């Protein structure tokens, strides 16, 4: 046989083999991925595919550890889900909100603003693409976002099913075995507290530089809630590391265009901080309860069909 035909024939056999195993194995991993009940991905999946709650909370790990949906539901009578995800920033919140709004309109959206959310994060686009890749065929907003961020990854995700679940097998096993942190309607409680000696620190971040993309994403987030008449609350939750830069002013200047303002709770628990914090950035269970109570009283009492029980 001619060597070129031999190569063509054998290459074709391998391609077919690759195609079949890629589709089969990919579909199997996708099945387990979309059926996760615990972990960060389960929260994102809920937001992208089946959020139907009245109140939705957006943010990063501080959101996921600071707002207790069950307490909000109990006190307001409104269903609530915490969509906070560790390590994320404005671009993620915006994409997630747009995905939710493509099929559901909540009554209230709470955005937990981290004072570093407007800052550029190294390789954020890659991180964002990696997190949202499994949903590329599930939601138009996400598909468009991935196309904008990386045409290469967009193409690969359409060629290979397995690529869409890249690097996920380990976490899928972990979440199905329920190893690690558990969440309750997206809320992840933290047990333990800071040492007695811990005090609130004021950080003067001289290198703080706002990213245009993050600011645009923030404004788009606000606009998206406005276009659907959703009540938006932008809050900065408590922390023991208080940044002294201008993020709050920037947020307010954008929000004021829409008759909104940012509520700053960052120094709410300065007095007995060490008992209420798990670490400098996150409240423990007791702190989260106290903070959620404050949020309910300050922001969620006047929602139609809701009443303080």
């Amino acid at each position: 046989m001619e060597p070129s035909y031999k190569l063509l024939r054998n290459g074709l056999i391998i391609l077919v083999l690759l195609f079949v195993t890629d589709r089969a194995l990919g579909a199997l991993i996708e099945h387990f991925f979309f059926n996760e009940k615990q972990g960060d991905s389960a929260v994102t999946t809920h937001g992208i595919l089946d959020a139907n709650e009245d109140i939705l909370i957006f943010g990063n790990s501080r959101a996921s550890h600071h707002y207790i949906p069950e307490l909000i539901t109990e006190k307001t009578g409104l269903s609530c889900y915490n969509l906070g995800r560790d390590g994320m920033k404005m671009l993620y919140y915006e994409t997630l909100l747009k995905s939710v709004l493509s099929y559901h309109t909540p009554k209230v959206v709470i955005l937990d603003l981290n004072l570093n959310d407007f800052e550029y994060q190294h390789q954020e686009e890659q991180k964002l693409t990696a997190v949202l890749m499994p949903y590329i065929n599930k939601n138009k907003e996400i598909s468009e976002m991935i196309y904008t961020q990386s045409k290469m990854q967009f193409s690969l995700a359409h060629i290979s099913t397995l690529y869409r679940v890249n690097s996920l097998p380990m976490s899928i096993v972990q979440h199905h075995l329920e190893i690690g942190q558990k969440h309750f309607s997206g809320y992840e409680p933290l047990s333990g507290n800071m040492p007695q000696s811990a005090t609130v620190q004021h950080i003067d971040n001289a290198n703080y530089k706002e990213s245009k993309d993050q600011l645009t994403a923030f404004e788009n987030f606000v606009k998206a809630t406005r276009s659907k008449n959703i009540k938006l609350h932008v809050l900065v939750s408590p922390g023991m590391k208080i940044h002294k830069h201008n993020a709050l002013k920037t947020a307010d200047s954008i929000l004021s265009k829409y008759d909104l303002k940012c509520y700053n709770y960052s120094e709410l628990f300065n007095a007995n901080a060490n008992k209420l914090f798990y670490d400098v950035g996150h409240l423990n269970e007791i702190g989260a309860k106290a903070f959620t109570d404050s949020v309910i009283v300050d922001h969620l009492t006047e929602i139609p069909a809701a009443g303080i029980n």
Partner: protein
Amino acid sequence: MLFNSLHFFFFFILVTPAFFLLPHQHRWKLLLASSCYFYMTFVPVYILILGFTIIIDYFAGILIENSKGKKKKKFLILSLVANIGVLAVFKYYNFLNDNLSFLLGNIGYQNHVPYLEILLPIGLSFHTFQAMSYTIEVYRGNQKAEKHFGIYSLYVMFYPQLVAGPIERPQNILHQFHVKQYFNYTNVVEGLKLITWGLFKKVVIADRLSIYVDAVYNNADQHSGLTLIVATVFFAFQIYCDFSGYSDIAIGCARVMGYNLMINFRRPYLAGSIKDFWSRWHISLSTWFRDYLYFPLGGSKVAIPRWYLNLFIVFMVSGLWHGANWTFIVWGALHGIYQIFSVSFKKFNERNILGYRPLTNAFHVLLTFALVCFAWIFFRANNVTEAFNICKSIFTLKGEGLFIGTPEGFVYALIWILFLLVVEYITEYHSDIIKVFYSSNRVVRYAGYTVIVLFIILFGVFNGGQFIYFQF
């Protein structure tokens, strides 16, 4: 254009068939044009630098061949000065200026020499060294001067090894461009296997490890001694898989077209001594320094103190070759010191100190690995002060706990290092056992190919990570 990009994939599947479809006399044109395109996808204007050195060395080669005595030497010196001059301007000028400013500042003077606002051309040290090896070999009479300007240009610019080697010798590659390469099934398959394995090492192992290593080394002062040890070991495997992965892809791409490039790595972390390590790590560079610097300095055929000095000089220069930073110079100096100790205690090293040969060998492999890792600290750290602080944290076991990053990422990193070590160990000591890629049973062979490709897709890190050695 990176080897781990879709851009390269399309480039490769267009250029390779076109190469075989063209008549032999036109192939060099295709390869040269595609190599120019490949290089210009980085910073287009820097092709002019390559053009400059190519023209100088092409004519220098012919003039050297046609001259005798002092004149011959003059042409060689002219060529070397031009090449080293380009390196000096683009790679070392700002570094030297920095150090001058520091020295003058210490004695109360200000340095008014301006800095150059230039980017380092990709792979400059690689193609410059390859170009220099040509004129030196012509001078030594080991290589005839290449009269065909296009073929000579291709020798410097051949895209598979243009930006990160292997640094070829003219005797090995130049004549291959004159010979008609026929489509050969074995060559194509062997080449594709190498490309796949190289890609696996790059995107599955190196880029995975880089996530952890970057997180630790970019905030080294925040991490415990234990974390820094783990990050350093991870970096050792990262740089190995990154660079050897690149070399495998380069050799594989050339092999598909029928060209044989020299081997660049031979399981370096299984070396039993530092000398052995350097016969396995970046072989094309270490043999370059051996042939064109160490031997001319007198090698080992001189008095012992001079021999030690020769070793030290070679490794210092090797450090400087890697980059214009004191971290690389210290890294080179450390390897120079290791070499001197290694040859001084040769007899001790050969003794069976643990009484059981396999155990003694394992001890030597581990000791060599530890020494190499220690030197990697200087290679990876952002500056020398930081490197010394990292050493201090490691030796005092500063802080507590181990930074994991993302647990799954950490576990993947460990699994792939273990996988690599098993493959390398088996290849080193029981090469007949690895039959997956070479099994006579087609089902086993194809299953092997499928699994490795699926591993790349499922576990690879596709963040467009550059190859570390591009910067050199």
